[in-house]
């Protein structure tokens, strides 16, 4: 693995230059929040930020994407085009939790039983440059409880670590190594590695929230009918903010939108919080109330995903904790489940 030292002041410029050559998505200030969005050519991204309000998943698994187009003719339906082909993309500044979310999404969209061509195409063309959390940005961060780490490189092609006066850049994958020329810098020595080890140990110890996420699984296995679910959801507004901001939530709904003779088939984010979630054509919904929907949300993340892929479908970014309008706190919910 190639390791380089990059001058602090040159990083934003390197990314800005890349933005002229390919699609670059990066953290940018937008009014009073930091959003992960596409840079204009030569636009400089934020390099000093906590984390983006939205998760990067929108650029691999868009909120709305066209799967196919068709036209109605006197002879019947005629295909009028397919999905847009993905473009060469660089994700800059993903936090390790978000970089790890791509690994978790891969398990579902790119697996033996099911290959999702739309996701796989975009994923294959995306290079992830992650930025380690030298100091975990929020007290709500709990990546270490769900298998992550604030300075980990899982899911990243390049990992940047702020050593104080310069960045240590680790080019982890062949995709990452393609960026060597663009990043430049000088070869990193043993000292930089030592410095990173110290930073890594310190960063992990600074994670303020611990969640008994692994202990939840055996409880969930036997508590499907527990009275706990009858009260958990009571204050939930069913707004779906948690699932929209979640880096790993991936449920979708497919819908046809037709105007006159032209139709498109679109795939949209769905949310287990919505009343239409899993509603069947007959009108029946096996999850008729917020009780069943909340149970689904928790079960999916902490039980079913473990059953299917041996991984918890949560990266501990804390977005849902911070953004929920009624303070449904997944850290507390999981802690309460373990006590059942």
């Amino acid at each position, binding site marked *: 693995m190639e390791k380089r030292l990059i001058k602090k002041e040159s990083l934003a410029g390197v990314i800005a230059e890349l933005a002229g050559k390919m699609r670059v998505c990066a953290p940018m200030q937008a*009014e*009073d*929040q*930091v959003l992960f969005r596409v840079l204009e050519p030569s636009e400089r991204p934020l390099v000093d930020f*906590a984390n983006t309000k939205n998760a990067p998943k929108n650029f691999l698994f868009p*909120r*709305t994407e066209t799967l196919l187009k068709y036209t109605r003719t006197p002879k019947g339906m005629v295909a009028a085009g397919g999905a847009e082909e993905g473009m060469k993309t660089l994700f800059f500044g993903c936090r390790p939790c978000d970089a790890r979310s791509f690994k978790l999404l891969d398990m579902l969209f790119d697996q033996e039983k099911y290959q999702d061509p739309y996701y796989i195409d975009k994923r294959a063309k995306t290079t992830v440059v992650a930025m380690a959390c030298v*100091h975990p*940005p*929020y*007290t*709500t961060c709990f990546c270490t409880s769900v298998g992550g780490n604030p300075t980990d490189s899982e899911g990243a092609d390049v990992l940047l670590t702020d050593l104080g006066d310069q960045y240590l850049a680790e080019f982890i994958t062949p995709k990452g190594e393609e960026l060597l020329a663009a990043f430049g810098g000088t070869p990193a020595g043993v000292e930089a590695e030592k410095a990173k080890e110290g930073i890594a140990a310190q960063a992990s110890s600074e994670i303020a*929230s611990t969640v008994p996420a692994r202990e939840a699984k055996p409880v969930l296995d036997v508590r499907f009918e527990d009275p706990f679910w009858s*009260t958990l959801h*009571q*204050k939930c*507004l*069913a*707004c*779906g*903010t948690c699932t*929209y*901001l979640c880096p790993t939530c991936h449920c979708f*709904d497919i*819908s046809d*939108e037709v105007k006159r003779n032209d139709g498109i088939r*679109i795939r*949209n984010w769905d*949310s287990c919080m*919505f*009343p*239409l979630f899993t*509603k069947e054509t007959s009108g029946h919904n096996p999850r008729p109330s917020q009780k069943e929907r909340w149970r689904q949300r928790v079960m999916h993340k902490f039980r079913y995903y473990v059953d299917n892929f041996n991984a918890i479908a949560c990266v501990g970014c804390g977005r849902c*904790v*911070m*953004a929920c*309008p*009624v*303070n449904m*706190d997944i*850290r*507390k919910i999981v802690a309460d489940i373990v006590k059942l």
Partner: protein
Amino acid sequence: MSGGTATVENPVEKKLREEAKRLLADKKVDVIVGYEAGTLPLTATPCFITAPEEADKLVWNPCCTQNLAKFVHDLLSQHHEAQKRVKPEAKRKKTVGVVARGCTTRSLIIHLQEKQYGRDEVVILGVPCGGYVDNRKLAALAGGEEIREGAIDGSEVVVKTAKGNRKAPLGELLADCCLTCRFNEPVLADVETGKGTPVAAADKEYEPVGAFENLPAEERWAYFEREMAKCIRCTACRNVCPSCYCRICFADQSQPRWVDIGENASDTQLFQLMRMYHMVGRCVDCGSCTAVCPMGVDLRKFLKKLDKDARDLFGHRAGVSLEEPAPLGTYKETDKEEFIFNPGGGGH
């Protein structure tokens, strides 16, 4: 994970807990909807209490944001629905207690007027209100940094961030709707817990809307388009609104589908327009929709305009009396109708 607020002496909260405990112990209510401390600093969150000993977790402070009338409607309509499948001899009444500030009591009055439940099914624990903290103003005070600790001491708010402490007078952080609120006391209550201090600027209530009304139509439309472009249709505004209680919202209907689910601007605009038009004479300006919006859409501007129209055209103020009929629920020969025949001329 400790949250909450270090407050100075809080006699209303003390009285509230005593009264809640008494109501539950005497079996006067089955459940009390109130607020408890949240898991994040300077937050409070709705809670549901069914045992007297839980009453001590009730809080009443300027972090108590949402209008709880929504939950009263949820609980009672679910109960009514469940009772339909129960034999007559086994039917049971459910009584819900609710911690209610001025705007919450106005929403309860709207529910009662609209025959959503009986007056005997709700016990109102009235609380005086000096307004609640706007979470965006609070975030601005913290300079975009995470609030690691926070406290409200009297009339001063202090937040601790990784970059140091910041403070501001409470009055500067209150939600816009609270700054011109004239309902600092409950309009209707079964239990009283104290008296509040009136907010002085109630006469300025419609000033910002008046200024907006006077803009050219193109500018008003451009503002509407820009605000609606922020909306991600999470429907938090609809779901938190006590006046939005349709059993199946038109936006959730799939046969026919009135609103498509993709990211089409006109679908979002349609959803918001339709929702807002159902609010004429039914919006109490509690600010809950704005408070829960994750994208910061300025919904209040448009709702306040409709509120002003109900006031100007029908002399109506939503939810202030059980007797006064709602403008959408009544017809008078003297009703103004210029806005129908001459929509451009009346400024409405």
